């Protein structure tokens, strides 16, 4: 009895609220309460019923609504509407040309085909939804007094949901409980925003139960939060407690749908948004519909066809009128209408216009649209099935998310690429270091390690792995290994579990030896507190391990505690110094063990909670869990990947960072000792100081030590200048190393140290404290204190970290550029790093003149003008020699035709946009081979893309992997997302998703070319086909008094387009291969044909129209003259024409088909056979259709007549002769590169490769002026190089560079600097 009352009350309160509040205020707030008191009540009593539930539906149709809705959508298309209008016209008695029912067949077939395609797509969405909706989750039930297992779709707003570690969150949940004692829950948001680092979420203030239990029944607050929005970073609200206390909460309290819980055993909370109202779903916009360039062109040509149709119909109507007028009297063969009245010639002419429209309707290639769609489905099938675009590592193919822009891939002129994660792997690799002025090249990290890393991820460890040294701690934490497949099915994103840092660091043998030697000294060093030269190695690695903000992953915290406890019991130096239990000697050779180890990694956080173990890793026995204490399971979470890379590097040398707490950092030394440093202060990184420091107290010497790490420019100035010359020498050597690192594209950092006296530290600490306690300009004061402390440093060494380029990036960029594509790189990274990467991926070549635009002042315009003038001076061909002296002055080794690179900073870019200098920038950029924009925001990225796309009217492609690339991906004509490290955001926004940058090469050069050439040729052919066939009917009008009579039976006429000639072009559009993939890859310049739209130009359209007219004239008049003046009847006359046009149309296609596979033969021969079979059957059974002159037995009669065959042969030959001859001449003269390439295809593989080489060597000098190096210049160039190389070797015999190009890069860097100083 209380329920209605409650209900009434709820209504009343709602009404009251409605009265009290303004409506818009009401709109902004969502109010919800716990569902638990209302459990099991009917829906209308549920308090939160007005909010969407968690079942999602991304399908467009239901079973019932499919037919009406699909029809409705299809009729939105212009083409279909046209067709329906035509069909309707058929039902108008006065104009009808065919039997109305027959006229409906084509439109029905097209509608049905499209509907089937739509239904199939929708069904796939339905299945995906179903899978998601039925995913398991735990919802609290009042009856059961516990969480019960239910499906995602059962989750409602107001439910209490529990999520466990590694589970995907089913809805947006306000966090109220966490198993973590600190009340935090870690989530990984990779599915949403692509960021793989763990994020902390906190439970709402005041909900941390002291005993760790969570009782949803006692939750009686009312939650007010904002309405659903797609902003991932905005969430606000408050809890209204029963005691009228308000507790605010924000986005740090919200668990988002689609994210994965990590490192937290379990978390629970109340659902605030569900289903389509979750932030994840609001961000998921579904597939995108873009219209390709080709399709836009097709549409204009369809309009031409409409115009043509109009003209033809007008001719028909006028002709009929004139024809009627020629008779003085009404002739006996002109029938009156059914009322025995004759209508006036003018009116009949008017009606005749519409009859003509019906008769000639095929001129508008309606089936073209459905054919294009089918072709694109086929093309996408082949693209997604390309094994070269498949990534073994992640087991993923290329995803085609936009279904209708495949051919745009073949017309790209500008590529805008992100840098990190797109060109580079976004895996930081410790590559080189310089300690005490000696360079250590970690050569193993350069290449060999990569090959070793992949098989390891497959679950095996190769025998000859460089890390075989048993005395070293194994550097592979279990989590870099891919999970076994069943796991990856149940857990949607286990792949993101791996960190973007290359955790394997193969130590340099020499350096390892040095550190090993020192191991013997370590005990002594620890006791005797002095810092001599030999200890610097220890300091260097300690600094690497300590001087950072890396968090040892909280996933391991439970382990850590138990570990430390055990260590404590074993310790012989209290609190700080102890040995570590040896690593478990369990054999790992068998796959089973490895798998178990992996599985364990997923359940590790739950290992202390036996109640949960059965849910994820039930097969684990207690004994296996013993391996949890393996210290190799450490993972480091760092704000910047560089830091983590340094920590891993230190670990490789035995300096393992074990734990970090705010006041204490624990490091294990190579021989097993564990040092625990007291952290006195951390001077965080900021961009003005460009360095960070930690102040620690050494556990043994009790000294206060400052370790500083920072940019070389920042550290080098702060070195102690009162030191002996040896130190200075080290510093200068290190500086030289740093320069080389930078030029090799490495990220450089200097490591320094300072020992502070107790007194000095105390003094400083008091100032520091003062600074911390001030309120006004606290930041400044803090920085001042930091600067104060970081002086007189002792240089320990330097490191070079590589953000390794992805496989084949330079080759890909080179190929794309050869293909006439301009590659721009837009990155948020800073100038130096970006430029270095640009050089190493050959975006800039060594000979390039690189201009750097870096200004935020108002002089932007003058600088642009100045640079532009500079560029013009070089590019003006007649003046190039006269300016030779100036060129020589600026850069002595420059060749005559320099190419340019442009580096522009985000600040400058915004100035350019503010000052409306876009056109100047574009003008400049067009002279440059490459443009590099650094420090740009996502918005600027898209602005640049938009600028190029709109102003230059070119096809653009954006490629990126992170959330910051989404804007630019969506702006470009084609957006490509790289799936991989940075999650799904970019992929979700993209049209195509690939796994590696190198895939772009095949995707564009091969698939792009194919898709474009296939579709373009198919479209052209389609226009031809219709015009040619329709014109046959049109010519006949001159011999039937423009009466709209067809000499071909209308069934055969409709079948002709629908069945006999429809499949070959579709097959052609899907499968024709004008040039083989190998040749296309070998000769990227072939791509230019697509860029210039050479297959489908306006001229091509009109030429093919002329050809169609010619062919239709031939196909009409040769039979006409043959049968002229005989007793031939109308369908006997039409049959050879129909047959002839079938042959002509098919053989026309045969001329265009460049490669005949069995499938081609099958379709072509099949179409001809189908025609004859259908025609024979039709004319055998159609006794009484289409009276009075019906097609009965016509085909049979014709096929018994030799003249029929003679007519067929001659007509076909005459019709196709011109096109054939032109193609033969083209093939003989081989003027176009395409024909030449096609000839190469016929050679054997070796011969072809040789020819391709020849080709390139022939063409490149003329086409790429950069390679035109005058003999003198090349001599001086090589001389300089050899000099430089030798000097290098003299100075640093230890240093071994991987290749020449790196030294060459230093040159270009020299150029660049000289230019930059000139312009900025």
């Amino acid at each position: 009895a209380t329920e209605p009352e409650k209900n009434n009350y709820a209504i009343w309160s709602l009404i009251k609220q409605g009265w009290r509040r303004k409506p818009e205020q009401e709109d902004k707030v969502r109010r919800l309460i716990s569902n638990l008191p209302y459990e099991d009540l009917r829906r209308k009593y549920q308090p939160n019923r007005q909010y969407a539930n968690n079942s999602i539906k991304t399908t467009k149709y239901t079973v019932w609504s499919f037919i009406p809705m699909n029809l409705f959508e299809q009729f939105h298309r212009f083409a279909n509407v046209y067709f329906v209008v035509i069909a309707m016209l058929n039902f108008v008695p006065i104009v009808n040309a065919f039997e109305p029912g027959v006229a409906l067949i084509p439109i029905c077939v097209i509608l049905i085909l499209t509907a089937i395609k739509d239904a199939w797509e929708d069904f796939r969405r339905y299945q995906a939804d179903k899978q998601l909706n039925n995913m398991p989750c735990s919802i609290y039930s009042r009856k059961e007094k516990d969480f019960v297992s239910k499906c995602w779709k059962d989750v409602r707003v107001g439910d209490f949901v529990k999520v466990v570690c590694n589970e995907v969150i089913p809805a947006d949940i306000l966090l109220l409980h966490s198993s973590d004692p600190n009340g935090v829950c870690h989530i990984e948001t990779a599915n949403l925003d692509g960021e793989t680092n763990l994020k902390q979420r906190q439970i709402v203030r005041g909900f941390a139960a002291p005993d760790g239990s969570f009782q949803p029944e006692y939750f009686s607050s009312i939650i007010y939060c904002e309405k659903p929005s797609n902003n991932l970073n905005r969430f606000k609200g408050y809890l209204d407690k029963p005691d009228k206390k308000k507790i605010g909460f924000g986005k740090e309290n919200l668990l988002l749908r689609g994210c994965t819980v990590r490192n937290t055993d379990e978390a629970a909370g109340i659902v605030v948004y569900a289903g389509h109202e979750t932030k994840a779903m609001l961000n998921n916009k579904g597939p995108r519909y873009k219209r390709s360039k080709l399709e836009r062109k097709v549409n204009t040509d369809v309009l031409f066809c409409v115009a043509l149709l109009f003209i033809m119909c007008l001719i028909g109507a006028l002709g009929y009128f004139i024809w009627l007028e020629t008779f003085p009297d009404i002739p006996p063969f002109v029938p009156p209408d059914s009322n025995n009245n004759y209508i006036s010639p003018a009116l009949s002419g008017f009606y005749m216009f519409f009859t003509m429209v019906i008769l000639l309707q095929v001129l508008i290639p309606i089936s073209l649209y459905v054919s294009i769609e089918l072709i694109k489905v086929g093309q996408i099938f082949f693209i997604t099935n390309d094994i070269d675009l498949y990534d073994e590592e992640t087991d993923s193919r290329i995803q085609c998310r936009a279904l209708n822009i495949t051919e745009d891939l073949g017309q790209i002129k500008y590529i805008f690429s992100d840098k990190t994660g797109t060109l580079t792997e976004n895996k930081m690799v410790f590559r080189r270091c310089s300690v005490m002025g000696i360079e250590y090249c970690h050569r193993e990290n350069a290449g060999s390690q990569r090959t070793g890393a992949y098989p390891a991820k497959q679950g095996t460890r190769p025998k000859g792995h460089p890390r075989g040294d048993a005395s070293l701690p194994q550097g592979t934490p279990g989590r870099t290994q891919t999970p076994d497949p069943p796991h990856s099915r149940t857990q949607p994103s286990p792949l993101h579990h791996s960190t973007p840092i290359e955790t394997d660091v193969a130590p340099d043998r020499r350096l390892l030896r040095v550190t090993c030697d020192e191991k013997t000294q370590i005990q002594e060093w620890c006791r005797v507190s002095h810092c001599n030269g030999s200890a610097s190695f220890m300091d260097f690695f300690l600094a690497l391990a300590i001087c950072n903000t890396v968090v040892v992953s909280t996933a391991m915290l439970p382990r850590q505690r138990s570990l430390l406890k055990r260590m404590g019991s074993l310790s012989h130096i209290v609190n700080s110094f102890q040995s570590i239990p040896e690593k478990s000697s369990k054999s790992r050779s068998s796959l089973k063990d490895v798998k178990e180890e992996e599985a364990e990694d997923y359940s590790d956080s739950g290992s202390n909670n036996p109640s949960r173990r059965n849910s994820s890793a039930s097969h684990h026995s207690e004994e296996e869990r013993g391996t949890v204490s393996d210290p190799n399971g450490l993972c480091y979470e760092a704000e910047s990947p560089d830091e983590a890379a340094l920590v891993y590097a230190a670990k490789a040398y035995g300096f393992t960072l074990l734990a970090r707490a705010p006041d204490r950092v624990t490091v294990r030394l190579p021989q097993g000792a564990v040092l625990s440093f007291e952290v006195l202060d951390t001077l965080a990184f900021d961009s003005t100081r460009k360095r960070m420091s930690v102040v620690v107290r050494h556990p043994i010497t009790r000294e206060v030590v400052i370790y500083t790490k920072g940019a070389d420019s920042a550290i080098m100035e702060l070195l102690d200048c009162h030191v002996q010359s040896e130190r200075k020498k080290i510093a200068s050597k290190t500086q030289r190393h740093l320069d080389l690192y930078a030029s090799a594209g490495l990220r450089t950092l200097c490591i320094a140290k300072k020992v502070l006296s107790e007194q000095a530290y105390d003094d400083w600490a008091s100032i520091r404290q003062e600074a911390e306690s001030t309120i006004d300009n606290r930041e400044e004061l803090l920085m001042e204190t930091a600067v104060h402390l970081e002086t007189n440093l002792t240089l320990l060494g330097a490191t070079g970290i590589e953000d390794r380029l992805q496989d084949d990036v330079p080759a890909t960029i080179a190929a794309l550029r050869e293909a006439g594509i301009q590659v721009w790189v837009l990155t948020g990274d800073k100038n130096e790093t970006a430029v270095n990467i640009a050089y190493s991926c050959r975006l800039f070549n060594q000979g390039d003149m690189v201009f750097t635009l870096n200004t935020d002042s108002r002089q932007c315009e003058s600088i642009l003008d100045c640079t532009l003038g500079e560029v013009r001076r070089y590019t003006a061909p007649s003046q190039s020699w006269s300016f030779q002296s100036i060129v020589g002055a600026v850069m002595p080794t420059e060749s005559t035709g320099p190419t340019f690179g442009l580096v522009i900073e985000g600040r400058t870019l915004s100035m350019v946009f503010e000052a409306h200098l876009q056109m100047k920038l574009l003008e400049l950029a067009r002279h440059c081979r490459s443009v590099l924009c650094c420090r740009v925001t996502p918005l600027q990225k898209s602005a640049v893309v938009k600028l190029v796309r709109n102003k230059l009217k070119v096809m653009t492609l954006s490629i990126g992997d992170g959330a910051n690339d989404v804007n630019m991906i969506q702006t470009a004509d084609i957006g490509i997302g790289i799936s991989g490290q940075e999650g799904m955001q970019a992929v979700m926004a993209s049209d195509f998703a690939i796994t590696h940058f190198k895939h772009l090469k095949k995707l564009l050069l091969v698939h792009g070319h194919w898709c474009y050439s296939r579709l373009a040729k198919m479209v052209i052919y389609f226009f031809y086909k219709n015009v040619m066939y329709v014109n046959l009917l049109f010519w006949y009008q001159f011999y039937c008094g423009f009466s709209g009579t067809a000499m071909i039976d209308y069934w055969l006429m409709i079948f002709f387009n629908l069945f006999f000639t429809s499949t070959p072009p579709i097959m052609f559009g899907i499968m024709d291969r004008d040039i083989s993939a190998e040749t296309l890859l070998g000769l990227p310049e072939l791509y230019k044909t697509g860029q210039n739209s050479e297959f489908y130009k306006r001229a091509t359209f009109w030429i093919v129209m002329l050809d169609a007219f010619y062919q239709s004239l031939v196909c009409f008049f040769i039979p006409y003259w043959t049968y002229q003046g005989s007793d031939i009847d109308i369908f006997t006359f039409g049959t050879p024409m129909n047959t002839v046009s079938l042959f002509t149309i098919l053989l026309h296609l045969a001329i265009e088909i460049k490669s005949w596979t069995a499938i081609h033969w099958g379709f072509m021969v099949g179409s001809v056979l189908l025609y004859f079979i259908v025609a024979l059957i039709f004319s055998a059974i159609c006794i009484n259709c289409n009276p009075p002159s019906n097609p009965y037995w016509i085909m049979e009669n014709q096929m018994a007549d030799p003249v029929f065959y003679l007519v067929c042969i001659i007509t076909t030959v005459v019709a196709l002769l011109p096109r054939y001859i032109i193609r033969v001449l083209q093939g003989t003269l081989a003027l176009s590169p395409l024909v030449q390439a096609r000839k190469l295809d016929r050679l054997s593989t070796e011969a072809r490769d040789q020819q391709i080489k020849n080709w390139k060597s022939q063409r490149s000098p003329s086409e790429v002026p950069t390679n035109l190096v005058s003999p003198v210049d090349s001599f001086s160039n090589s001389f300089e190089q050899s000099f430089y190389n030798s000097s290098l070797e003299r100075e640093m015999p230890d240093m071994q560079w991987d290749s020449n190009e790196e030294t060459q890069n230093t040159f270009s860097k020299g150029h660049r600097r000289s230019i930059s100083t000139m312009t900025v």
Partner: protein
Amino acid sequence: VSQLGAGTTNRPDNTAFDQQRLPAWQPVLSAGIVIPGFLLVGLAFIGIGVALFVTSRSIQVLENDYTGTGSSVHCSECVNPKTTPCTCQLNFSLSALFQGPVFLYYGLSNYFQNLWGDLSKSPSSSCAPYQYDQNTTIAPCGSVANSMFNDTFTLYQLVNATRKTVPLDGKGIAWWTDYNIKFRNPPEVDGSLAAAFNGTVKPVNWPKPVYDLDPTNPANNGFLNQDFLVWMRTAALPDFWKLYRRITEGEYASGLPAGNYTLEIQYNYPVANFAGRKSVIFSNTSWMGGKNQFLGIAYLVTGSLCVVMSAVMLIVYAKFNSPDEDF
């Protein structure tokens, strides 16, 4: 180990089809290859052309316009539509044997019988407006039937100033399928075809009802009348012939011997109001049907063109031959 997950992997099939590596014939059209083709086709066409041309030349055609207006002198007396029935004569002489079997056609020009094709738009009204005459069904209905050609011809050979009738064979001039399958008479009532058509009226323009078309041969009446069937096979073009009779009997089976002939024409069909022309044609046939010079000439021209093209290609080939074209 990597094969372990092979069953569930997402890896595309490495088949020739999926990877678009199907073995293919990749013809590159070039002069070197097509020269023999052109030459062969050209010679073959010339051969066919000669054969066709010779055959066509051997066919004799004798056409006489008897419209009676304009240039035609015959039957001018019958042009006035008031003179009905009107009979006129057309005299001609053959200097040599007209090789048999001889076919007698009538020809109409500027007559758009194919216009009726547009009546086929909708079968429900295919007979309209000639379906009912004062609510009685017309048999045969439709305007094609209504406008049936109704001139009749009788051929005499003048032998020694006496007229000797040349027997004209009207059997089997229609298509076999039309006669045997497509058209059917209604079942006879009491052995009378006329009774079967009870309740119908004759087409407006017809002088006689359908069951009375051929008084000489009772079997040749109704919808199965040969002349009716021929007429109902719609002509394709506005100038057309239709077969009237064959001369296959008796002494004329081998052809019309040389001599003078008179064709007596029952002039009924008006063509003046649409500037049409009527003619009568004697022709014999060959394997390729009636006389047709065009096809032979077309073959000859095309064949010669192909031969010329092969010569042109040879020049092109000699000039632009690239060394790598020898495959």
